């Protein structure tokens, strides 16, 4: 089971609200390559992982992603504090505001609500880990795209931390995939589901 700790994985302290930026960054909460989807993906896939090392990697990265979801939520929360009606309208935050005021709701930057259809849990470790590698790259490039549009150092700093974690997770999943492939034998050279076809 899980326990909650009242401490972010990395600090988030933003001086200046910026609703336009919040509207973009929220995509890493509820978007197609966001932290909520990442966490659900790994925590769903871990049951069919064929060895404990990969079960461990999926459990621990899935757990860390929950912490990243909290960091993104904290960034959006701080970027949308004390907004005037003028700021809401001029920052393009008005459509979100009508539905959610300044509550935190998992949507993509385009406004599409979070959907589990953005990830898979196939029961096949090679397929799952290949998806996980792609997912970490997609999250990394989303952070790269965000960093192209962010000037405020208070916002850049936690986003850069999150970007670096995507790179580390990509490495760990690469090792997990290699472990699973090393378990294959000559009877299963083409890597048909090593979780199911024992």
């Amino acid at each position: 089971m899980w326990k909650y700790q009242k401490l972010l994985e990395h600090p988030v302290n933003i001086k200046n609200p910026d609703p336009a930026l919040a509207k973009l960054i929220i995509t890493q909460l509820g978007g197609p390559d966001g932290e909520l989807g990442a966490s659900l993906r790994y925590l769903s896939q871990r049951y069919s992982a064929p060895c404990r090392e990969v079960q461990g990697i999926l459990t621990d990265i899935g757990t860390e992603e929950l912490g990243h979801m909290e960091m993104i939520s904290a960034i959006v929360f701080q970027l949308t504090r004390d907004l005037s009606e003028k700021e809401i309208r001029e920052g393009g935050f008005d459509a979100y505001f009508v539905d959610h005021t300044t509550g935190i709701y998992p949507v993509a930057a385009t406004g599409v609500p979070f959907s589990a259809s953005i990830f898979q849990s196939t029961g096949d470790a090679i397929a799952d880990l290949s998806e996980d590698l792609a997912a970490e790259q997609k999250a990394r490039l989303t952070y790269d795209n965000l960093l192209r549009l962010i000037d405020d150092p208070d916002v850049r700093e936690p986003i850069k931390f999150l970007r670096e974690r995507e790179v580390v997770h990509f490495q760990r999943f690469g090792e997990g995939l290699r472990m699973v492939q090393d378990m294959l034998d000559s009877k299963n050279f083409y890597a048909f589901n090593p979780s199911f076809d024992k």
Partner: protein
Amino acid sequence: MALSDKQLMQKKIQACEFTLTDVILYLDSHPNCPDGLEYYRKHKAMLEKAVADYEKTYGPLTAMGVCDDEKKWTWATTAFPWERSEN
């Protein structure tokens, strides 16, 4: 079926944790209740002892629970709880 020693120790931890989960919810809405606080402290101490005893014998319950004298990383080499025989 009789419970194994491992299952008995797990049961004790689960009981302490559930007790704490429940009293924590109570204290969230009754933060000034001295009896609630005392109940919390008593079960927190029981849980800490039960977890330390379990981890010494059966391996870590969390990634922070790997014992100091372990020669290798036992977090990802001991069983995960969704395996049927493990709980």
